[in-house]
């Protein structure tokens, strides 16, 4: 027993001393797990940015976008990150309430005018439309509207709107399509929901293993299967009510000890180089003009967007979550 104690201490000390290259500045970024996975944009973005910054880029992954915000709220000024990457436009006002978000010094001349972007703190880095994905070899006639899906008995997987920006997107979608019967719509959906996952990656992986008929994701998800797997069976269902758009954003924290480096990274995110990486790794659409896209992207559905008042939505977010969690209980 006595021999064990020094051994334990030795292991504890050695395992807590995380090996780090101390010669370079380290820029720490909070993001979500699929961003940093081997097939995600993380490794390529890291390699490209480190080449020009002579720094070390370190990603710290949470399960999904909202978890990043929650972590920020929990840690407050003790947050380790210099940059947060992976919130979406609906979370901007809530994120700003933490008082931790720094204003950026970016020039948006190159952004697509359709995004109509003018925020002073957050930088958009990609965007997409939420959609339900299905396997066309299993489903011959997919649903053509959100209402049809809600009323069907097709098994679905979606993400928790408290943690995932994708789940939050569905929440806005349901609220837009059922402004007065939100609760009833959630109840109907719950009767054929397999599970509600914490993050997008967890839910999508489960769907790919045959977990459900439909999974909540993006219209661009089939491009991933087309390009990396030459697999054309996964398709996005085109809904007649229109689709909710999501703009993913990043921002620097004002607690960062490397504010200039953080700004450099934000600038890099909307550079040609990064914008070419993101569509074929994060499987979302570029935010700047004239980025050549793989031919696979032309095979995707072109959804009609639902126009939404983001300010109003973020204000109602908490109330919407309450309705959801009371109704989604079986």
């Amino acid at each position, binding site marked *: 027993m006595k021999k064990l104690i020094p051994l334990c201490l030795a292991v504890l000390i050695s395992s807590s001393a995380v090996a780090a290259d101390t010669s370079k500045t380290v820029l720490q970024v909070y993001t979500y797990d699929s961003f940093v996975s081997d097939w995600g944009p993380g490794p390529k973005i890291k390699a490209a940015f480190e080449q020009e910054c002579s720094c070390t880029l370190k990603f710290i992954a949470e399960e999904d976008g909202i978890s990043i915000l929650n972590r920020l709220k*929990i840690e407050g000024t003790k947050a380790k990150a210099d940059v947060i990457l992976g919130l979406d436009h609906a979370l901007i006002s809530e994120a700003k309430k933490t008082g931790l978000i720094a204003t950026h010094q970016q020039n948006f001349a190159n952004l697509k005018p359709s995004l109509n972007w003018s925020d002073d703190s957050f930088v958009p880095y990609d965007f997409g439309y939420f959609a339900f994905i299905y396997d066309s070899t299993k489903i011959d006639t997919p649903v053509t509207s959100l209402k049809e899906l809600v009323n069907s008995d097709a098994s679905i997987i979606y993400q928790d709107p408290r943690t995932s920006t994708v789940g939050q997107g569905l929440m806005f979608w349901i609220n837009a399509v059922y402004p007065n019967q939100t609760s009833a719509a959630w109840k109907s959906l719950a009767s054929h929901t*397999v599970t509600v996952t914490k993050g997008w990656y967890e839910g999508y992986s489960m769907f790919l293993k045959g977990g459900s008929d439909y999974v909540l994701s993006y219209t661009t998800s089939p491009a991933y299967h087309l390009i990396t797997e030459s697999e054309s069976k996964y398709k996005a269902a085109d809904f007649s009510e229109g689709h909710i758009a999501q703009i993913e954003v990043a921002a620097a924290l004002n607690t960062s000890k490397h504010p200039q480096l953080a700004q450099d990274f934000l600038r890099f995110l909307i550079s040609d180089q990064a914008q070419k990486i993101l569509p074929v790794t994060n499987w979302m659409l570029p935010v700047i003009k004239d980025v050549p896209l793989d031919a696979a992207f032309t095979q995707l559905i072109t959804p009609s967007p639902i126009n939404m008042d983001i300010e109003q939505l973020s204000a109602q977010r908490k109330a919407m979550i309450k309705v*959801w*969690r009371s109704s989604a209980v*079986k």
Partner: protein
Amino acid sequence: MLICTVTLLSFYGLIAFNGQGADLELLSDSYFHSILIFSIKQALLSALISTVLAWPIARAIYYYPNLLFKRAFLSLALLCFVLPTLVLITGFVSLLGRSGIITPLLGPDWNLYGLHGILLAHVYMNLPFAIRAFHAQLQNIPASSWMLASQLKLSGWQKIFLIEWPVLRANFNLTFGFIFILCFNSFAVVLALGGGPQSTTLEVAIYQALKYDFNIGEALTLAWSQLLIAGTFFVLLYRSNSVSWLSKDTRGDYQLPCSSSWQKIRYGLLYSCTLIFMLTPLLALLPGVFAADYSRSIIGNILEALSLTLVLGIICASVAIALAYAIMLPIRQSILQGKTRKTLVLQWLANHSLIAPAMVLSVGLYILFLPLIDLDSVGMIFVVILNIMMVLPFAIQQIRARLLQYDSDYAVLSQSLKLSTRQKLSIEWHYSKSVFFSTFALVIMLAMGDVAIFSIFGSDQLKTLPWLIYQYAGSYKINEASLASAVLLLLYATLLFNLERAKQHA
């Protein structure tokens, strides 16, 4: 006392966080009602199914003592009970998940996520526990009862009601209550198999309020509700007695009524079914183990998590046993001096952390220390402290009997012999060595399986093996989860083997 301070601190945290009180509005929210009802419903069902099924199985083992692998069966039963729940969940997912091995046989409506899965996992963990408890109790039937029964020519039913039931009755209620509390406080199973908001218990809702919403007011309300309900149940239970489920089978010479061959077949069948039920989820890990990707990073992750888990377990178990011994000193003193009331108070204080669920204590401390220190870097210290508190009552319970017996046998003698403290300790050590080893094995298993405390205080950089399994299973990497689970299972089986051996030598 140190442990009391920790509890008090966490309650202080629960009472006030920056003046932000509990969110009482939640109490009238239908969400709160439905999780409350669900928590109680699943716990009641789990306890009911486990105890009712355990009864005939315990009888089968009792009446048919020559069953094959009986000793192994009882060890396996203990393993099922102490096994980290995530190992089990991985097994169930690869068996019964959407693309599970057995799933196609269950029809299109089968869904592991939700009440089905939760009940299945809870019964799996607690049925063997109940079998062990009932079996131990049945062995207490004196041989004379059976002789009397055969002289009186009692029928089968009469035997059950006149001989078995009186012995089992108290134990039945106790086991039921104990399983109810365990399931009511269950965390990992519900988190992994609940399927989101569809089936959430209070324990998981606390975690979600804190980590999903960062809604401290709600977390406080939920934690207090959890504490009140679990606490009330525990006090009710504590007043009745403790379950002697780990007692070794000492009496080898008990005399049994003869069973007819028809009965033997029935008992044998029941026994085999249970054995299959207990083994299948564990064997279901094998396909994943063979198919796993043995890349350097995955092996590295597993080994790193394994060493952290072991280190945490060893520290927790050593400190817990040392503390248990220290706590027993004043209790033994007061027993020797015949102060009954003082003894009771001391024992209650020693066991008080059983009342407060790990999640409630963790949340209290978390909220208290959040604004004060960087919890991310010292979180591990809290994981250790809280785990020690959680396993301490078990450690005390285990070493208590042996130490008290030592006192009653030798205390007077050693006093009159005027032995030095060193000599006394050495005699005491020789007397209770085996109990200390078996307690160490039990306590380390309980501490290493923790997920609830780690989920609050743990960090991304340092993961315990159960948490790594949760993450693998969460991202549906069932092969990797199976591999990690198999490693943990092997570790537990080894520990358990040593525990049972130590008990036999005791």
